[in-house]
């Protein structure tokens, strides 16, 4: 898939790893609204700003029953070190092996071997509600875009 997964599409089967090594799959999306934040690399400067910014609005998201995750192709140990260095609580999901398989399934795998900077909102029915890919990996999507999308009625 060359284009980001579009709204109305059921999320395909996928497997990511949580920081503790356990699996995170399609079944984990069911029953709540989820924001998946695909970012190119742990420790790269723009990503750092992005997760710090989203951390500031987590309370608002949680108050509405929305869970937000960071997704990259970095190893889970790298992701944890990154999260701890930033001082953020956003749970990280690793698409390390087979590398980028989930990113490919969501249509957000950059040909140079890392996730595009993209946001995917998935409804409690595991169907994509909204998706957004930044025009370039160095452009950081504002938190306002997430709230705009969540305010739209689910189609």
């Amino acid at each position, binding site marked *: 898939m060359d284009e980001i997964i579009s709204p109305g599409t059921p999320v395909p089967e996928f497997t990511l790893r949580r920081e503790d090594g356990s699996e995170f799959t399609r079944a984990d999306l069911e029953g709540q609204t989820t924001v998946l934040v695909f970012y190119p690399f742990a420790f790269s400067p723009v990503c*750092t*700003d*992005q*997760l*710090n*910014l989203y*951390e*500031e*609005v987590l309370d*608002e998201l949680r108050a*509405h029953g929305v869970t937000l995750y960071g997704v990259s192709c970095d190893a889970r140990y790298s992701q944890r070190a990154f999260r701890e260095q*930033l*001082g*953020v609580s956003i749970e990280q999901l690793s698409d390390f092996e087979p590398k980028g398989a989930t990113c490919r399934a969501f249509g957000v795998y950059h040909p140079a071997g890392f996730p595009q900077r993209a946001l995917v909102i998935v409804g409690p029915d595991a169907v994509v509600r909204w998706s957004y890919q930044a025009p370039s990996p160095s452009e*950081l*999507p*504002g*938190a*306002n*875009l997430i*709230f*705009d999308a*969540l*305010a739209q009625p689910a189609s």
Partner: protein
Amino acid sequence: MSELRSAPLPEVSPADHVRGPDGAPLVIEYADFECPYCAALSVRLDGLALRRVFRHFPVRSSHPRAWAAACAAEAAGLQGRFWEMHDLLFADQGRLEDPHLWARARRLGLELERFERDRRSQRVAERVRADFQAGVRAGVVTTPTVFAQGRTFAGHFDPALLTRRG
């Protein structure tokens, strides 16, 4: 969920912190007192004939004292000394713990008990939060972000753009 949806940048209002001559080019800064790039920008803007508006955009995870510093500036503002505290905070970002904030308040001749009460008050927290939320709604994603001449400059801003002719 409406409180963080996209919205236009708020117009300059009497609630804003504004300095500089009327009629000078307007610069609206979203900044964080613990952000080194914000301090550097502030120094570069000092001394230019600009009408500057300061709005808070503290991001706690990267700058753990940013909120406390923002609230200290607001508390100083309630005693009429916002910009003086703004300058003192940016002048020494390595010292932002409580005793350092008290030392600045003392240096400015503020009434200390009132400063202490105000900087921890709901009113001040809401003021800082309101700036942050308005920034998010206007699409601010990093600091410093400058709005000037109808354009947005995120992270990098060259003040020469404001004085260049033609």
